[in-house]
């Protein structure tokens, strides 16, 4: 398969009445739900350093990426997007070391030109 059809499903469409008239067959490409539309960047803003984060598709809870926050603002690049826009859930938690924070959850739409999620963690009850 050529690069033109990479990540695409190819389905042969039965000849329609029109195509029969033209004495030919229509070949069409159909996107599979599991195919990636594009890769996007999500900017995380104002996260507490030392927190743990997890980005998941909101509809299915399929995890896209997770890790530890090493700087307040950072970019997560190369996130696969399966529909445009795609709603993702952002979970940020920090409770292992002081100062501890309450879990924070927010949502963001991943778009082709990137998106951002502002984090506002609150201190845990002590």
């Amino acid at each position, binding site marked *: 398969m050529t690069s033109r059809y990479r990540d695409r499903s190819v389905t042969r469409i039965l000849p329609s009445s029109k195509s029969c008239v033209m004495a030919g067959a229509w070949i069409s490409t159909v996107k599979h739900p599991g195919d990636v539309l594009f890769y996007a960047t999500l900017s995380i803003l104002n996260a507490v350093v030392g927190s*743990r984060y997890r980005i998941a598709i909101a509809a299915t809870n399929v*995890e896209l990426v*997770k890790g530890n926050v090493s700087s307040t603002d950072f970019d997560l690049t190369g996130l696969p997007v399966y529909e445009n826009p795609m709603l993702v859930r952002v979970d940020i938690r*920090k*409770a292992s070391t002081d100062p*501890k924070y309450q*879990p924070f959850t927010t949502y963001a739409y991943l778009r082709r030109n990137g998106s951002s999620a502002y984090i506002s963690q609150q201190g*845990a*009850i002590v």
Partner: protein
Amino acid sequence: MAYSFDFDNRIIDVISPQTDVDVQDLYEACREAEDSLIGIQYEGIVNASGKESLGSGVSIGLTVELLDWQLRFWDGNYVAKIAGGNLVGGIGGDPVAYSPGVQVLLIQSAASTVVQISTGSGLSTEEHDQLMGVVATKTDLLNKEAGLTPEQNTLLSNTATKTDVAPIAFMEQVLKNKRELVKSGSSWYLVVYGDDEITPILRKPLTDVSGSDIVDLIPGVLAREGASLV
């Protein structure tokens, strides 16, 4: 305190031999579990509220709500206790799962408060003042035992803290060093020498009872030692 979290079945297991659960401790353990590598894949375990300060070291009690989770004690014949705050929520409004043989005492209050104890010296202002009063009295007693008035004690303390100790060293020399009766002209003097036993450091004229110079040293003549300028 040790707990084990079963994220699939939403059960918090209290590990043996722990029988008492402090709600604040449970809350912190839940938060840590939520933050764990596995826990972050799941929804939260608890919600919590309270601990707002009412002033004077008093704050509202803690209420922890289990979000479709339950606390389960280990099997055995004992009475378990949950205290230190309100534990609510759980599956069907029951925060505690059944454990064979265990009787769980869940202590709850609609108006719970927490009184914070100072972690400084552990003394209140009144206790501090009282203790310092005892210390002051003890110091007075020690001074009295030493035969010193408070003023003398103050003077002694001030003297002891002086950096210039020359007068004290001089007094020691006067008391310890060689001293001599020396006749100079028509008068006799008491001379105290320095550590080298050569250099005079004090020279005091000696007179008879009438204040006249002593001409010669004979028994019964020497009567007084005059003051010196030093």
